[in-house]
C-alpha cells in the first residue's frame, strides 16, 4: 500500500477515498443539493421532492432494465419507443372516451397486462434478433425503435389519449404506490444481479462471452432473457409514465433515451459490458433528476438543460476513467 500512496501523493487522502467510494454519485448528489439550495428557490421543499420523485420513478425503472443489458455488453435503444407504444396501446384499452374496454370493470387489469405484454413481447423480438439471428444489438434495437415509434404514431394518428380510469391513474399519481412498485423491482434486480447464479452469468457474458460459453454459461439464453427483461422494465415504466401524466402519448419518453443511458453510465456501468451495479444506476438517475429539476427552477430552457446534462454525463465518464486509473495503481 505504501508504494501506491506515494504514486498518488498528489491527491489528498480524503478526496481519493471519496473518488473511489462506491457511493460517490450519492455524495455528489448531496453536495449538489447543498450547493444549489441557495440559488434555486423552492429546490429543498416537500412539494419539490414529490415533483422530483414523480419524474424519477419511471426513469429509474427503465434504467434498471437497461443496466442489465449494458452489463451483458449489449445496448437497447428501443426502450423509450417501447414505453411510447405500451402507453398508447394501454390507453386505447382503458380510455373512458373511446377505449376498447371503456367502462368494463376489468379494463384496468387488462390494460396493465397489455402494457407489460407489449414490453415483454418487443423485448423478446429484440432478444431473438440479437441472440438467435446474431444481429449486432445496436442495429437490432435501433430498427425496433424506428418501427415501434413509427407504429405508435400511426396507430393513434398522432393523438394523445386521455380519459384514463382513476384506478389506473392512481398507480402513478399516488406516490406511495408508484414508489413501492419502482423500489420493489429495483430491489429485485439488485438482488438478482448481486446474489444469484444468474447474476453471475450476466457479468460473465459481459466480461468474456467466449470464455463464458466454454465454462458452461448458456450465453444465448442469458442474452435473450436480458432483452426480454429490458422490455418488461420498459413496459412497467410505461405504466408509471402513463398513469403519472394521465395520458397515453405516442411521443411518451421520446426525449428520455439519453437521460436513461446517461444515468446508467453515471452510475458506473460500463458500456463495454461486465461491470455495473443497480445501486449505481439508482444514484445516477437521482443525480440527473436533481440537475434537471434545479435548472428548471432556476429558469433555464429545455435546450440549455439538455446541454448541461450532456456536460454532466461527460464529466461522469471522465471521473470514471480517472477512478479506474487510480484503482489500477493502488488496488
Amino acid at each position, binding site marked *: 500500500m505504501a508504494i501506491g500512496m506515494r504514486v498518488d501523493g498528489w491527491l489528498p487522502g480524503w478526496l481519493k477515498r471519496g473518488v473511489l467510494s462506491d457511493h460517490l454519485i450519492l455524495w455528489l448528489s448531496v453536495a449538489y443539493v447543498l450547493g444549489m439550495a441557495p440559488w434555486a428557490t423552492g429546490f429543498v421543499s416537500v412539494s419539490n421532492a414529490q415533483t422530483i420523485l414523480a419524474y424519477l420513478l419511471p426513469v429509474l425503472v427503465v434504467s434498471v432494465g437497461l443496466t442489465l443489458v449494458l452489463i451483458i455488453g449489449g445496448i437497447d435503444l428501443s426502450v423509450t419507443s417501447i414505453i411510447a407504444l405500451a402507453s398508447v396501446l394501454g390507453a386505447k384499452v382503458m380510455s373512458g372516451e373511446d377505449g376498447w374496454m371503456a367502462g368494463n370493470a376489468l379494463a384496468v387489469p387488462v390494460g396493465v397486462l397489455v402494457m407489460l405484454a407489449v414490453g415483454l413481447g418487443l423485448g423478446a423480438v429484440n432478444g431473438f434478433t440479437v441472440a438467435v439471428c446474431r444481429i449486432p444489438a445496436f442495429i437490432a434495437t435501433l430498427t425496433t425503435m424506428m418501427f415501434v415509434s413509427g407504429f405508435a404514431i400511426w396507430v393513434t394518428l398522432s393523438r394523445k389519449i386521455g380519459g384514463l380510469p382513476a384506478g389506473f391513474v392512481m398507480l402513478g399519481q399516488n406516490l406511495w404506490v408508484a414508489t413501492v412498485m419502482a423500489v420493489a423491482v429495483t430491489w429485485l434486480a439488485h*438482488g438478482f444481479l448481486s446474489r444469484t447464479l444468474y447474476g*453471475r452469468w450476466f457479468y460473465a457474458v459481459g*466480461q468474456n462471452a*467466449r470464455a463464458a460459453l*466454454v465454462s458452461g454459461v448458456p450465453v444465448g439464453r442469458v442474452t435473450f432473457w436480458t432483452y426480454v427483461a429490458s422490455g418488461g422494465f420498459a413496459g412497467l415504466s410505461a405504466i408509471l409514465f402513463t398513469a403519472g401524466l394521465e395520458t397515453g402519448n405516442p411521443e411518451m419518453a421520446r426525449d428520455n433515451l439519453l437521460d436513461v443511458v446517461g444515468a446508467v453510465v453515471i452510475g458506473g456501468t460500463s458500456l463495454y459490458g461486465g461491470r455495473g451495479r443497480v445501486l449505481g444506476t439508482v444514484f445516477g438517475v437521482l443525480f440527473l433528476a436533481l440537475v434537471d429539476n434545479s435548472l428548471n427552477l432556476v429558469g433555464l430552457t429545455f435546450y440549455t438543460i439538455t446541454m448541461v446534462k450532456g456536460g454532466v454525463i461527460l464529466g461522469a465518464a471522465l471521473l470514471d476513467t480517472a477512478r479506474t486509473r487510480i484503482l489500477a495503481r493502488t488496488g
Partner: protein
Amino acid sequence: MDENPPMRVDRLTEPLLAFRRIDKGFFGVKVLEGVSFEVHAGCALGLVGENGAGKSTLMNIVGGNLCADAGEMRWNGGRYSPRSPREAERAGVAFIHQELNLFQNLTIAENLFIGGFPRRLGLIDRRAMGERARAVLREVRLEHGPDTPVERLSAGERQLVEIAKAMMGEARLIILDEPTTSLTTRETGRLFEMVRQLRERGLALIYISHNLEQVRALCDDLVILRDGQVVGSGAMSGFTLDRMVSLMVGREITQFFPTRTSRPSTEVLLEVRGVSQPGMVRAVTFELHRGEVLGISGLMGSGRSELARILFGLDDCSAGEIRLAGECLNPLPPRERIARGMAFLTEDRRADGLCLEASVGDNITLVALGRMVGRTKAVRREEAQAAVRRMREAVRLTPGARDGQPVKTLSGGNQQKVVLAKWILNEPKVFILDEPTRGIDVGAKCEVYRLINELAGRGAGVLMISSEVEELIGMCDRILVMNRGAIGDSIEPGQFDRERILRSALHSGVLA
C-alpha cells in the same frame, strides 16, 4: 547452435544503459527490488526469469511505459527517466514486443514511417519513402518490396520489419521480448544472424526469452531475475543451462516430470468413433480410459484443437459418434457435457479461458457455481469462498493474489492455475487440455504436471494436446499423432521416441 560466442566486451567503456537499485511495486507488492546491472554497446544481454519475475516491468520502465518508484537509470553517462514511450524512442530505445505492433492492413513502408512520414509540400512523399524503405529492407535482407501489405508476411518476416523500423529510428538499444515463439527454425536462424550483425555495428541488445538454449547461443552477458531481484549476472560463459534453471526457479529441479503412481484402468471413459468434419478432422477414432493420460501430438493446423472443440461440443461434426461413459454426447451443447463431467482448458486462456476483468474468486467458481446455490438460485457465499480457498491451495496459486483481485493482473502461470482450479472444482471425469503449459514458466509447468497426475490418480481421463514432444513423452500413457485432420499414428508406452512422433506428424511432406 552451441558454439560459444566470442567475448568482445571492453569493460573499460562507459555502459550504454545502467540500472541503479531500481524499485517498483504494484498493488502494494514489490515487483522489482534493488535491480542493478549494465548494458554495454556492442553486446547482447540475455534477460531470463520465470513469468512474474519482473522482466516485463523492468523493460516497461526502460521503454517509458512505467516509472520506477526508486533508483535511477543512466543512459550514456547521463540521467535517464523517460516519461513516455516517445521519449524513450527519441533517446534511442527500440522495443520489439512479443505481440508485434505492426499495422497489418498497411504496407511495409507505411509501417516503417508511421512515426513520421517524409513530406514534400505538406504531402507524403511516396517516392522518398519507397527509396529509404528499400535501403533499410536490404540491410535486414527482407526480400519484399516496400509496398507489400504486412498481412502477407510470415511471422519471421514481420519480425524483420520491426527490426528495420528500429534501425530507421537510429536505435542504439533494441529490446527483443520472446521474438522467436512464433518463428520457424529457418526464420529463427535468420533473426539470429541479424542480431549478430546489429551487435557488430555497436548496438546494444537486450534479449528476453524462455528458450534458454537460444539465449546461451546468442548472448554475451546474462542477467537472471527472480521475484524482482537480480539473482545472477555476468558473462554468459559462467553459466550452464542447469545453473540458469536452478537460479531462475530458486531450487534444483531434480525431476522435471513427476512420476505417477497410479495406472490407467481398462474401463473406457470416452469413446470416439469416426468423428469427421470437412476441412477439420477426418474419421478420428480412439478410446480414453479411466486414469489414463492420452497425448495428442501434431503440427499446428493438424486438427488437434479442432478435435478438442468438437469433443467439447463447441463445433459440430458431420459424422461419427462421441460417447462418455456409454452415453452419446453428439447433440449436447458444452453446458450439458460439462454437467456430465467434461472439462476443457483452451489453447488461448486470454481469449476463451478466463474473464480477465473478473476476480480470481469469480473465475474459479464460474463453472461449478450451479452446485453452490439454494432453491432461489441465490449463491451460498460461505460455500463459494470455502471452495475458492480449497482450490487455491490445490493448485498452489501464489499467496500474493487476493480473491478479489482481477485475474488480468496475475502472471501467465498463475492465470493458468486459475483456469485449472475452475475445472478441478467441478470434479471432471474427462479433462481435455489444449496446450496446458503454453507461455508459462518452469515452476508453473511442474505444478500443471503434478495436477494432471493427481487428476489421473483420481480416475479421470486426461486428453493432453501439446506441441512440446518432450512434455508428452514425459507425461502420457499413450500418444496419438495427428496429421492433416486424421490420426496418423498411435504410439504405445515403451515405444515413445521423439523422432517417430515428428516423422508421423510430418508424414507425406505437405507441411515441409
